[in-house]
């Protein structure tokens, strides 16, 4: 379920790092908690962000959720498919429904994030609290 080559945050974002660029999305757990997604507000190209900063919001029918960048860097690409079809976040959160690409300013930040096994343990504990 959770790709082994991605890294994960406690706020339920994932990042896949390829060379200097990371692709960021929200996890399957996050989309299932949100329910039907109806709108995604994403940052402008070229914006620079620090790890942990909010870079947008995802709105479902029942709630709005901020999204936080797992790493620092500059936004280099935005998934334009989300403008007209935000609902793909529910269908393919780890794939075609990626949110943004970021040029990492400090690649060492990635090692502080959870791997897939740690994230699965983390969400299993969260589910128990519910």
């Amino acid at each position, binding site marked *: 379920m959770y790709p082994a080559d991605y890294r994960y945050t406690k706020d339920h974002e994932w990042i896949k790092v390829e060379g200097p660029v990371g692709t960021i999305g929200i996890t399957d757990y996050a989309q299932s908690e949100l*329910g*039907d997604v*109806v*709108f995604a*507000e994403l940052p402008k190209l070229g914006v620079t962000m620090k790890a942990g900063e909010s870079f947008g*919001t995802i*709105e479902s*029918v*029942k709630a*709005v959720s901020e999204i936080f960048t797992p790493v620092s860097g500059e936004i280099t690409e935005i998934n334009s498919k989300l403008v007209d079809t935000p609902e793909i976040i529910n269908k393919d959160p780890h794939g075609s429904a990626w949110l943004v690409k970021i040029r990492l300013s400090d690649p060492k930040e990635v090692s502080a994030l959870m791997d897939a096994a740690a994230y699965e343990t983390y969400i299993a504990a969260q589910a128990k609290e*519910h």
Partner: protein
Amino acid sequence: MVNFGGWDMPVEYSGILSEHEAVRTRAGLFDVSHMGEIEVRGHSALDLVQWVTCNNAAKLVVGQAQYSGLMTERGTFVDDLLVHKISDTHYLLCVNASNQDRDFDHIVSKNEVGAEVENAGPRYSQLAVQGPRAKEILQKLTPVVLDPIRYYHFTFGKVSGVDCLIARTGYTGEDGFEIYFDPQFSEKLWGELMQAGEAFGMIPCGLGARNTLRLEAAMCLYGHEIDETTTPLEAGLGWICKLEKGRFLGCDVLAAQKQSGIGRKLVGFEMIDKRIGRDGYPVQIDGRDAGCVTSGGPAPFLKKNIGMAYVPPESSAAGSSIEIGIRGQAAAARIVALPFYKRPH
């Protein structure tokens, strides 16, 4: 699952959007057993109902239901409710789950006419079959001919062999029925209805769709549009406020307010901005804080983002521009006439 007035209830089964669509185009089944019931009996039953509620229950015929408000002395809402006239000496009040005990205490404390008041919630389960196919689905399970039961009327009869009060009421803006029965038959009737509805595309619906459906139909929700600080006149519910019926709790305050005018008015709005104005967000008019969103969110059937809000009466005309404060930014919206959605049939 969420805790709702002490009940563990599902927010959604298959998803709010699919559940909403099912109710607008086919049918949905809601377990609304959390709703409270209070029964008022005796020769002075009508006198007590008339004293504590603002609509005119004397106009009801046996087998008729009425939307009304349970009033404080200040003419504000203790709760909103449905009043069912079972006989000249017997009324069934259907109230909100979270208010049930408070409503009961309030009615008892105002009972100076010797009516018998029972907190009857534990004796009833309630299921709501809602949507354009609801009548056909329920008809498969009951010998009662449903077609002649008019909107906001009810009768007694068997559903799958179980004694029920069958009311043509609902909280979705669609045609449909709410059935009240002994809780021991809850699982049986849920199962029988789901089975009967399968061929019609009926699906189970949770609290999430219940909220989006009632918002699209611009029906008030206690704790949002109405509460102990709001009057029926402010909430656009002047039609349930029958000042000519005789004295009732809060009638003097309401008469004075009708005379002097209201200080704020409930309106509907549509977002122009792509963002969603949600419950509690501030409303600004010409840059000044003018009120608050009472309920706001996506209207799945209309494919718009809508909401209701209190604004000053002078700024309440349909077509007026307003702004909703969304995460520190002003988002454009416009006031529209209510309801947002009205069923075509």
